[in-house]
């Protein structure tokens, strides 16, 4: 066991964990925003795939990674808007329509991949940027402050989202729309518009989450490359109690343990690989069971809003 607690291993876990957490952070914070306003969007996985595809395709064709991010964000917005139309205006059952959106994203991204690329290609993605001074701190400087821009972006998103949700009027409206939409409506605030904004923003972030995989972390596109990450992101929102900081701790816990289990295998700790692979899930379930705070769930979550009905 002692070989696990050496400096290179701990730094390695920190570095890989931060990278693994990045797509979860974008997707889960976007989802937290939508859920706080009262809408459950299970289409995150599909939006991530479309974001990963469009980000990669545009970056490959134009050679401009920022255009790739823009494309992923735009596609995410469009799909978020689509989800808003279905769940808010048409008031469809949110769980089922979200799964429909996931299947749609999976199918369309695979189809487009086949039509436009056909084979897996790799590109040169965002390069790491060493932050001056901080990056020179011995040991941890390189691990914490030498990442690509989308990794930094994901972590900056946490305080930004916290501030927006807790300190701005918009954030107050969002939270109120998720707790008591009728009361919000009676104050003359348009619940429908609030929810449209949060779902569209959530879609945009899910699109960027996909792009963070395809043009910043792994730098290629393969069919179904998100492999269920979107659903883990939805679980992280519950885990985090609908607070961005909670989402961050959940994403980091899951990612660090995933990084740890790889090191357990590399360092030949006598643990079957099947068990090692399960560790992140087991630990997440244990923490979730111990720290469950049901009171935090937005009261109107997954309930369609109709004016005048209560």
């Amino acid at each position: 066991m002692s070989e696990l607690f050496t400096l290179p291993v701990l730094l390695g876990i920190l570095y890989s964990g931060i990278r693994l957490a990045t797509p979860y952070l974008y997707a889960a914070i976007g989802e937290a925003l939508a859920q706080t306003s009262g809408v459950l969007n299970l289409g995150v996985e599909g939006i991530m795939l479309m974001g990963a595809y469009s980000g990669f395709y545009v970056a490959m064709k134009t050679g401009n990674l920022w255009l790739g991010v823009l494309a992923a964000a735009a596609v995410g917005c469009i799909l978020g808007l689509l989800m808003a139309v279905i769940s808010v205006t048409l008031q469809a059952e949110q769980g089922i329509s979200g799964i429909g959106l996931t299947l749609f994203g999976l199918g369309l991204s695979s189809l487009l991949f086949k039509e436009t690329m056909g084979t897996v290609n790799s590109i040169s993605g965002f390069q790491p940027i060493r932050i001056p001074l901080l990056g020179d701190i011995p040991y941890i400087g390189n691990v914490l402050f030498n990442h690509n821009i989308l990794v930094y972006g994901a972590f900056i998103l946490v305080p930004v989202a916290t501030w927006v949700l807790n300190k701005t009027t918009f954030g107050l409206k969002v939270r109120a729309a998720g707790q008591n939409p009728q009361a919000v409506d009676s104050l003359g605030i348009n619940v429908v518009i609030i929810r449209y904004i949060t779902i569209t923003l959530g879609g945009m972030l899910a699109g960027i989450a996909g792009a963070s995989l395809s043009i910043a972390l792994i730098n290629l596109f393969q069919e179904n490359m998100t492999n269920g990450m979107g659903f883990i992101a939805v679980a992280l929102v519950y885990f985090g109690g609908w607070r961005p900081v909670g989402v961050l701790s959940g994403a980091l816990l899951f990612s660090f343990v995933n990084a740890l289990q790889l090191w357990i295998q590399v360092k030949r700790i006598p643990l079957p690989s099947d068990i090692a692979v399960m560790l992140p899930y087991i630990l997440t379930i244990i923490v979730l069971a111990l720290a469950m705070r049901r009171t935090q769930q937005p009261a109107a979550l997954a309930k369609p809003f109709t004016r005048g009905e209560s």
Partner: protein
Amino acid sequence: MKKNIFRLTLITIMIAAFLSSCAQATPAATDEAADGLRVAVVMPSTINDAAFSQSMYEGLKTIQTEMGGEDSMELAYSENMFNVPDAAAALRDYATQGYDLVIAHGSQYGTSLQQIAPDFPETSFAWGTSLNTFQADGINNVFAYQAEAQEGGYVLGTIAALMSESGIIGISGPVEAGDAKLYVDGFQAGVLATKPDATVNVTYTGSFSDVSLMAAAAETHIAAGADMLTGSSQSVVGAIGIAKDQNAFWFGTQWDQTSLAPTAVVASQVYDWTGILDDMISSRQAGVLGNKSYTLTFKNGGLIIQYNEAIEVPEEAKSAADAAIQGISDGTVNPLP
């Protein structure tokens, strides 16, 4: 209103399911060959996965060309059949449609095939990787095939051992079973037989499709000092991307993976299924519908080491690899000691 909403949700899901099935199960839209051979294959991943499924698809395309094109041999395929019940439905469907040879390209399809094959005694089935033709169950129309993945693993391990400067080699496998485990164990044996003091680190991700975790596994290996990496399954594209970005070398298996990262892939073990496919087809034409099991080996030409011309492999490593291939072929070298 409520009814309309339900209908709309249903329509949305149906469109979504339609689109996803468009992408997943695209039967090759070939004209029905009147008297020609009709072959169908069901695969767990895609025909361009640069791994297991692509090796079979390209093998079948080669056979099709050799036989004189689409008029002489019709080829249909269903890809992305990770879900075994879906695959079983596709297999039964192809058999019902009268395909002559129906291939279940995945060891996970075995139990399904065991139930389907007896219902279609005129159809030949093939499945792999396995050597079990279900003859013991009274089934006589199933061929089985397997790749001796450890052979190429051993040879590539020999090259990696001689090219490594750090003396540390990282292997990332998917699941500790079957074809992947054979390859991983063979690779490890090849490294250690060449350089007994080398360190070989092995990880498994527990998934054939988790690209992100495969990338993290490659990062971990590099952080642990590895400069030569390899791995198996279609999720290795994630690891190859990391190897390219962090200037490590990669060794591929199942298909030539050079195109994924021309600056990182040193060599690949390529599965060439054409020999066994030829034999299945001629057996069928001679009236033998199954009951034969095949292996891909260096000796029978089913395994090929494909070098990437753009990366210079030291002469010493190349000749050691040739010697290993020779030794495995004549039985003096055991790739799984």
